[in-house]
């Protein structure tokens, strides 16, 4: 096929509105874009002038899926700005809450959004007819993840009890014990899912890129750490802007980023590539069953890396619960700020990749804020993948080209509404 025009408005089974635009003329790729047409959100401007205690509640509304991720990142930014060191119990409870959200988000993506593609059906409804056990399993796992979050932070999404310096309310020991029983029971569902996906075929496409993820020497980290690149190098989180280098492109209301190459990738595959040695033995076993090996350069396998992380967080949740149950829950007061003015960066690995919040606080009020969201960081990489992929599959039928492109975008699990926070206004004179 020497001429091909794809103008796919509104990619389905992703969060938000994005369009794929491809134009091939005479065998030459003239344009290849992933347009982000979602309305800008202006969260950073909303934070200015607000008391620091409000920031986590406001920014958790950036996303209905990774609200705990935004809240936790926000709290860490504020705590770093105001010299607050949370207690060990707070760290453990936040971690457990975070695992719940990773589980919730990954189950939604792997089993409800991507599985229909792999099983050759259009959506979860026909999937429910042909493979009801898979869909019921996904619903059960999501329910458990939601209940885990609710027990820790007061509700499934948009946490109530997470606050600067600690928790406003604590889970009951019997609730934690029940969660532990259910997590043990879900192991079978997790193993069945690994078995299911190990038998499915993913598109073959390799393109090496730079992978960025948080790193901590002591664990497969989701909260706090240093930034690590697959091209070499470690940076403190406070210097994130050296890595993100945000810039504006005309076709997207979300900014793009680049570091050592034209683009980089964040998310489960980046974390797996950089931190695989820290996964739990069960998760490593799952990776082996699924045939996922570092360094993996097939972006479609981000979904497989998410499944490996599902295994990891189920195991890590059980272990964290054991520690909490053994130690008991102290109804401790939140740690008070050491100062009321300062600047701080919070950094977390939320489901879709590394997330940054940076606040400047003056006498308890936020005067400046910056949030760099994973999907925004992946946009340039998605386009670089499309530029490499399209010429390689041009000889295929048009519908297949479109499906491969849609599946590529979907593999990144983009959360488009989260990433848009910029509007480009031009004044004509």
């Amino acid at each position, binding site marked *: 096929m020497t001429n091909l025009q794809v103008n796919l408005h*509104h990619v389905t*089974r*992703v969060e938000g509105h994005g369009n794929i635009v491809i134009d091939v003329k005479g065998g030459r790729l003239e344009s290849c874009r992933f347009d982000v047409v979602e309305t800008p959100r202006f969260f950073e401007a909303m934070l200015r002038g607000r008391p620091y205690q409000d920031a986590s509640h406001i920014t958790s509304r950036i996303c*209905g899926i990774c609200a705990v991720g935004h809240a936790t990142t926000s709290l860490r930014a504020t705590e770093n700005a105001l010299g607050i060191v949370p207690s060990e119990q707070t760290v453990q409870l936040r971690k457990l809450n975070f695992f719940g959200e990773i589980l919730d988000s990954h189950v939604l993506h792997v089993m409800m959004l991507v599985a229909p593609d792999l099983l050759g059906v259009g*959506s*979860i409804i026909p999937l429910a007819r042909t493979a009801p056990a898979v*869909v*019921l399993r996904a*619903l*059960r796992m999501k329910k458990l993840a939601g209940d885990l979050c609710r027990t820790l932070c007061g509700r499934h999404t948009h946490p109530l009890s997470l606050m600067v310096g600690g928790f406003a309310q604590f889970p009951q020991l019997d609730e934690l014990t029940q969660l532990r029983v259910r997590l043990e029971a879900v192991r079978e569902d997790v193993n069945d899912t690994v078995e299911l996906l190990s038998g499915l075929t993913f598109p073959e496409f390799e393109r090496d890129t730079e992978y960025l993820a948080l790193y901590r020497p002591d664990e497969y980290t989701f909260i706090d750490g240093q930034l690590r690149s697959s091209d070499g190098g470690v940076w403190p989180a406070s210097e994130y802007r050296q890595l993100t280098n945000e810039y504006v492109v005309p076709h997207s209301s979300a900014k793009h980023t680049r570091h050592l190459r034209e683009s980089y990738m964040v998310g489960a595959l980046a974390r797996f590539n950089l931190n695989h040695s820290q996964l739990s033995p069960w998760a490593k076993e799952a990776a082996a069953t699924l045939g996922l090996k570092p360094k993996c350069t097939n972006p479609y396998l981000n979904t497989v890396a998410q499944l490996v992380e599902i295994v990891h967080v189920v195991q890590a949740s059980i272990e964290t619960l054991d520690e909490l149950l053994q130690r008991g829950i102290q109804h401790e007061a939140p740690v008070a700020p050491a100062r009321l003015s300062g600047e701080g960066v919070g950094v977390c690995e939320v489901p879709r990749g590394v997330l940054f919040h940076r606040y400047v606080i003056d006498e308890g009020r936020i005067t400046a804020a910056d949030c760099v969201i994973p999907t925004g960081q992946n946009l340039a990489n998605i386009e670089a993948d499309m530029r490499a992929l399209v010429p390689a599959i041009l000889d295929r039928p048009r519908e297949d080209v479109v499906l491969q492109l849609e599946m590529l975008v979907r593999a990144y699990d983009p959360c488009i509404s989260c990433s848009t926070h910029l509007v480009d206004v031009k004044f004509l004179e």
Partner: protein
Amino acid sequence: MRTLVLALGNPLRGDDGVARAVLEGLGQLDLGPAVSLVDGGTAGLHTVLSIQGWPRVIIIDAADFGAEPGTFRRLDIVAQDVESLQVLSDSLHSAGLLEALALAAALGEFPPQVTLLGVQPRSLDYTTELSDEVRAAIPAVVSAVIHAVAE
């Protein structure tokens, strides 16, 4: 018959809280051990798990059918009603009751009896208060639920 009475809606959105108010009214009565009253919150795909396994489900929700505020209607739904609907065409991130019922039907988990009691809202504004018309309708909706339970 074992019956689930499921209230759906967001009480922070004005008349969308009508189902919860009806549920509170029902909570003051003795409906017997076979009836469970559940606040299902905002509907989503998880609603499938709430209705799964019940021989009879009575759903209360605000529903815009263009009538006078406070009017309510009863609709008995069978799996065939929702099976052929083209739902979930784009995002799963904003699924509601219809998607949940369609998914339940596709899974073969659609309860044998599903009754929807829909109350026409006046306003879905950001308030915890019900409108006067919808508040006045609560006793009648409570009676309709009791009637449906007794059938």
